[in-house]
């Protein structure tokens, strides 16, 4: 069996101190393989977002070990972690989190510019990627000039432009209507199949489970179910 691209061992995470401390994740173990299209689901407060934050190196566990691409990442300092995220991870957020003063193309270029890549290269790649996602006519629009579905497509383009190994999406459809939700999940699935990028998304919407090749249920900070979907709804 190949090495997992994400490996979490004995992860414990709590928030608060003393008597007010809340244990969010408790001795959690999880491995995600390269190229998987995985859904982490559960009720609000179950710990799925915290789990995603830990996988995305946005937060540190109280205890346990995290390896991404076989690299132990918890020993890295903040700057090294930022560089690691920039090289290997892409993020899609519930509220899109686009920079309001930048156009769709400029938002998409941002991860490459953070890496210090040339503007021309970043601009060309952003334009091509947005065209691939059907946004070629919206390149120069700012976020407030676009619909929710269009914004989330820009966010997906921003997550993918740096050719990450893993894309992490926290409730990517929560702010979208059902038609747009399905469209976004199908787009993520298509990109997962085409680019062989590992996708992990968190949701509380059970309707989306049928799109995921693997679904992991989290309840009270523990994984209570982990299964592979044999009847996968696929993008046409």
């Amino acid at each position, binding site marked *: 069996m190949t090495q997992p691209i994400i490996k979490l061992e004995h992860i414990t995470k709590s928030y608060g101190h003393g008597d007010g401390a809340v244990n969010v994740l408790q001795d959690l173990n999880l491995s995600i393989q390269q190229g998987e299209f995985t859904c982490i689901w559960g009720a609000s407060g179950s710990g799925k977002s915290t789990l995603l934050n830990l996988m995305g190196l*946005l*937060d540190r566990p109280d205890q346990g070990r995290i390896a991404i691409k076989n690299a132990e990442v918890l020993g890295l300092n903040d700057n090294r972690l*930022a560089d690691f995220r920039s090289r290997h991870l892409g993020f899609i957020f519930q509220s899109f989190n686009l920079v309001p003063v930048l156009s769709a193309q400029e938002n998409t270029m941002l991860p490459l510019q953070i890496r210090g890549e040339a503007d021309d290269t970043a601009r060309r790649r952003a334009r091509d990627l947005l065209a691939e996602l059907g946004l070629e006519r919206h390149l120069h629009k700012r976020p407030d000039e676009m619909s929710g579905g269009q914004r989330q497509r820009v966010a997906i383009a921003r997550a993918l432009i740096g050719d990450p190994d893993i894309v992490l999406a926290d409730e990517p459809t929560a702010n979208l209507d059902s038609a747009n939700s399905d469209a976004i999940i199908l787009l993520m699935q298509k990109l997962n199949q085409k680019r062989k990028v590992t996708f992990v998304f968190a949701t509380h919407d059970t309707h989306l489970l049928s799109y995921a090749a693997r679904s992991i249920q989290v309840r009270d900070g523990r994984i209570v179910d982990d299964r592979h979907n044999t009847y996968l709804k696929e993008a046409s």
Partner: protein
Amino acid sequence: MSMSLAMRCKLAARNVMKNRRRSLVTVLSVAIGFLALSLFEGYFTYVYRILKDQAIVGERLGHLTVVRRGFFDQGTLDPEKFQLDAAALDLVTRTVRQVPGVKLVSPRLAVSGLVSNGTTSHIFIGEAISAEDQKALRGTEYAYLPGKLAPGQDDAAVIGQKMAKIMGLQQGSDGVLMASTLSGMVNAVDFRVGEIANTGSMGTDDKFALLPLALARKLYGSDGADRVVVVLDAVDSIPAVKPVLLEKLKAAGFDADIKEWSELSVYYTQVKGLFDMMYLFIMVVVVMVAMTSVVNTMTMAIAERTREIGTLRAIGMRSMTIKSLFVIEGVIIVFVGSLAGMALSYAIGAGINLAQITYSPPDSSEQAALVIELLFNNMFGSLFTLSVLAAVASYFPARHATQKTIVGALGHV
């Protein structure tokens, strides 16, 4: 691995423009602060220049004064001891003239005693200089000034306007000057009022007398001088020339003491000290107001964009780069405000100069012009200083914002 400076500036500029009204208020507060600083500085610059010229030319201090060592402390008690006799004066004059950068070497005698119109007498205090040296010291720039000694008229003195009034003297009137010679004998010489001139100071106008050097020598029974005033090609060369002069005079066997004009002009030093203190006070107040405004603007901007900060950090931007974005924003606001302040300063400064406003300075018997003399270098210095302070003022709120966890920043509402 870092975003280019051009991209950071673009992002910062877009954010400044996004909050146009708030940015404009801050830009205006900086512009008004800059205007206040520049106008005060422009006024002080003019006053300093006038006072400096007044000391160097008007008070005839030149750039450097050469005396026998000890003269400045004990010269009044024992003038004969520190007098430069003809031989010493010749040695000093020849030596000083050989030093590059020296334009004029002018022997002087301090004078004081009684002036009489035949019926009453009054004290006089002043100085003796040759008419040729006075003309050379004034040059063409200040040739128009009143109080000129006439070349070739060794008995014609200049006296203060108030003294002339007290004594009932007019131009062409004859009088007698009385003083103790160097050896202590009482002596008197006849003189003629060559010109009556206002000294500009109420404290000196009633006792001022400027004598031709030959007349003063006759009065004091001297063939030399008590000091030699040196004028250089440029006032800026004082620090370079002064040690050379000391060295050359020492090598020539003359134990000299040399003072600069600014050390001898007590009035200049006191006024400059007072104005410098006022400027410092105004600067501190203006900078505090401007920087408080910048900190307030940046704190609000950072609070509004906490989630954006979290997003940028999540996608790989280092904390230092994020701080730099806010620092650049603060600097842009202050830079634009300073440029606006600079433009306003030129416009209002020109308006004040055109209005030809005058006022009465303390202890002055004449009106003085209110002139704003704006120097680009000074204003550029203010712009640079304010920009650096803006960077510091923006850094701390930005630092505070990046100390928040990424998860905390992303969850900020």
